[in-house]
């Protein structure tokens, strides 16, 4: 069974440009999460989808970040316009149900804004 897949694995963009990250969760997982880790710091929660609905987006840093999950399958996270402080690794994770259960992470999309 395929795990959580993310694309691109690495991206280098200039300040002010736009980047769109994609996440394909494990098939059948209704819950999809986005997290971000800035170098040397904790993994911070960004938002949580249940199917196509945003259940919790309290971690989104500002309105330059837009996440979507049309159809409740894959999700995209767009950063527009990108700033230097947006550099980091963006992890997507999924789980079959909400609650105390293991969430499975993808390998991350490493974003560098220069």
């Amino acid at each position, binding site marked *: 069974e395929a795990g959580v897949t993310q694309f691109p694995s690495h991206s280098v963009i200039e300040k002010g440009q736009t980047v769109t990250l994609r996440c394909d969760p494990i098939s059948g997982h209704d819950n999809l999460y986005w997290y971000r880790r800035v170098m040397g710091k904790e993994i911070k929660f960004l938002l949580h989808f249940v199917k196509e609905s945003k259940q919790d987006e309290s971690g989104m840093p500002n309105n330059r970040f837009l996440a979507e999950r049309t159809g409740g399958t894959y999700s995209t996270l767009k950063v527009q316009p990108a700033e230097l402080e947006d550099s980091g690794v963006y992890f997507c994770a999924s789980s079959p149900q909400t609650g105390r259960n*293991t969430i499975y992470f993808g390998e991350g999309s490493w974003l560098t804004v220069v």
Partner: protein
Amino acid sequence: GESVGLHLPTLSVQEGDNSIINCAYSNSASDYFIWYKQESGKGPQFIIDIRSNMDKRQGQRVTVLLNKTVKHLSLQIAATQPGDSAVYFCAENAAGGSYIPTFGRGTSLIVHP
């Protein structure tokens, strides 16, 4: 706000030794804890979890201890191997919430052959 943190950012051990990675949490409402391992270039992988009604849980070469009195969690790795080198994160889930894991900063474990 509530936070999860780690006592040591880096831990160096010799191959074959036992490793202990510590984690402190401050949210008294947390009732489910998870340890993740993140190898270089990869995403966090589940290692072991423990619910608050337990003090100890063992897996293969790993043991998690939970001390609710002092809000402390530890991960013990027996006979540490070079393949155990990674960053280890503890995460907590708070009861009554959406059970979205909240992560600490991570401890980098370096195993010397």
